């Protein structure tokens, strides 16, 4: 196993899948000559040439639509959005076409496309460019939504997403690209979509989360441990479809849940998960479920306010203590 950055792990996944399958191609703003805005596609233009690593104009709706068309005729496009904050422009192609065509054509078309790029806040990018966009996509049926938080998950899940015959929204994080971790070298290292991963075992309270928030959850769990509380951290990895078996297992184990997500609380992923837990595991709950989310406001530009608006390990610790009635 090699220690790679999250960025390198994505690069390896793209390279391996493009070598394995000539139908896979990458398209987006600055993915070729510039190696990608975050250098995820470094060296791919040199290896695969401009027909498979396509620099697009600054026109999200246009190249997303091009990708959907390519997928309809059998190619496997990977469309990079410089960030999902810019992908709102392409929502019509993603939600009205990619997510609907398999259904509306009665299965005549598969849409094996991946839309990928960073989501969520970095630092001081202000309200328009700091949004965690997962639930925009998980809200509508038709897309799978994947949010890896570690280099190994990034690689294994991107490979699975490229091989999947449905549209996959693959959400990375600007603050994740430099995160390092061990990644299997195996070219067939694929993590199935829709399978959660227990990032930390515990017996007292379950912190359920996804994406870059797993790191916040793990920090919180470490703090709680000093207080004698064993927190379990369940990384959903895929937020649509949800791994309900894993969720119900951890709920049955600890009976107390905190949901942590980067985005807003209103109709967020946590709202969905909490609803499903109370429907399916009501009798396992020993306390109401609490959520830790971004404050329900546009992200402030001011650094001090931004820090207050984002979920933090301290807030997760507080929420865990509350559900433990401590």
């Amino acid at each position, binding site marked *: 196993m090699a220690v790679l950055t999250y960025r390198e792990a994505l690069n390896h996944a793209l390279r391996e899948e493009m070598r394995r399958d000539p139908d896979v191609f990458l398209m987006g703003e600055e993915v070729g000559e510039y190696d990608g805005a975050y250098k995820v596609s470094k060296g791919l233009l040199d290896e695969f040439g401009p027909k498979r690593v396509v620099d697009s104009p600054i026109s999200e709706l246009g190249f997303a639509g091009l990708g959907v068309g390519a997928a309809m005729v059998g190619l496997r496009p990977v469309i990079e959005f410089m960030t999902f904050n810019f992908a709102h422009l392409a929502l019509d192609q993603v939600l009205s076409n990619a997510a609907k065509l398999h259904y509306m054509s009665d299965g005549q078309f598969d849409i094996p496309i991946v839309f990928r790029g960073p989501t969520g806040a970095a630092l001081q990018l202000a309200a328009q460019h700091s949004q965690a966009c997962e639930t925009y996509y998980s809200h509508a049926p038709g897309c799978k939504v994947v949010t890896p938080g570690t280099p190994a998950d990034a690689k294994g899940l991107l490979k699975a997403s490229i091989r999947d015959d449905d549209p996959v929204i693959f959400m990375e994080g600007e603050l994740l690209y430099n995160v390092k971790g061990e990644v299997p070298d195996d070219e067939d290292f694929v993590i199935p979509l829709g399978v959660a991963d227990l990032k930390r075992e515990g*017996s*007292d309270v379950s912190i359920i989360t996804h994406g870059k928030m797993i790191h916040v959850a793990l920090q919180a769990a470490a703090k709680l441990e000093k*207080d*004698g*509380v*064993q927190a379990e951290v369940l990384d959903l990895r895929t937020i649509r479809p949800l791994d309900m078996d894993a969720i119900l297992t951890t709920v049955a184990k600890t*009976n107390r849940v905190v949901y942590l997500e980067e985005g807003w609380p209103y109709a967020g992923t946590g709202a969905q998960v909490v609803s499903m837990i109370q429907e399916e595991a*009501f*009798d*396992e*709950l*020993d*306390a109401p479920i609490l959520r830790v989310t971004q404050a329900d406001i546009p992200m402030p530009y001011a650094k001090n306010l931004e820090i207050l608006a984002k979920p933090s390990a301290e807030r997760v610790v507080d929420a865990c203590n509350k559900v*433990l*009635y*401590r």
Partner: protein
Amino acid sequence: MATKVHMEALSPTMEEGQLVKWLRSEGDQVASGDVLAEIETDKATMELVARGDGILRKIFVGPGGTAPVGAVIGVIAAKDEDISGITSSAGGSESGGGTASAAVATKPEPKQEPRRAEAPPASGPPRAAAAKPAPALPPPASDTAENGGRVKASPLARRLAADMGVDIARVQGSGPGGRVVKRDVEAAKAAGVQAPSVSAWVPDEAEYQDVPTSQMRKTIAKRLTTSIGPVPTFYLTVDIDMTRVIEARARINSILEADGLKVSINDLVLKAVAAALRRHPETNAQWQEGFIRRFNSVHLGVAVAIDEGLITPVVRNAHAKGVAQISAEVRELAGRARERKLVPEEYTGATFSVSNLGMLGIHEFTAIINPPEAGILAIGAMEETPVVVDGAVVVRPRMRVTMSCDHRVIDGATGARFLQTLRAMLEEPAAISL
């Protein structure tokens, strides 16, 4: 680490408490378990104990002040520890008068061990009565009389209680607002297994039976509740000839004289009521959503007038106790009730109640049912009354009793049969022992 002194829920229905007096002052060294203050709850004056060791650094609510349950009313900390965070969030008023701010009340943080602590907490939340012997029965989770029988419990606690055969209504909750959680059910189960009751009376049968409600029962309940709700009550009155009871009392007291004991007519009435209820479990019952709970045991509530109103201490397992014991318990409970020293488990959980205004010259009256009980007996004065016996007018001591019945549970004939038994027992006390 600093320990906040919270206004604790010292009675099942307590929402706020009034500080009677602090027994320790600012600057005193205190240890966990020390009594810090006396708190007047909605029911009684209770002791508030320290949950940590250190110096009582600050008092936020002075004598006469009130604070909602969960509010921080003081701080225990080391001598030089910085407690400014707590003092500012507690509203920060100096000791004396004052009332903890409502904002504080929204953050109830009962100090509890983490649930994975090796030893489960002995019996839910620490209560002020820690120094007293364990109660015979775990105290009820809520004063069902005042909240319509709803017990606050987590879904998991309810399931575990059902699985373990624990009556959740008798589990003291340690969660926010007295919510019963898993650890409380486990502790209650453990306590139930180890602890024979103080009265050494061990039930050889189930405490109660739940009888499913038939459609007719449901219809009766629904229609009558619509008419007189939420407890559709009717009244049955019977006159009882007390001649034999008076004789029996004299004989019993002559036996007890050697021990310096004495029983009253009322004690004999209580004994007879318990015995009659035992024969008529359908009147020793509660209306629950979906079923009627019939109790095999008789826990008899005895209304006691006190300065501020009325409280109903409970003689537990009255059916299994002799009249001398009932008499002693009633006297002892009533005495402490007047001093407002009863703990919650002593005035909750009755299955039927008796109210006696005879000593105040009341000829007859109707008493109001204390839900979820389904009946209460109003005892009037015993009076010399002319009655016709065998065609001749004679003077006999008569007593008029009126039973208030929850019609959802008890029908006219059901109540009448119970009163028939009661009358038979009082008119021939030997029948009590049948």
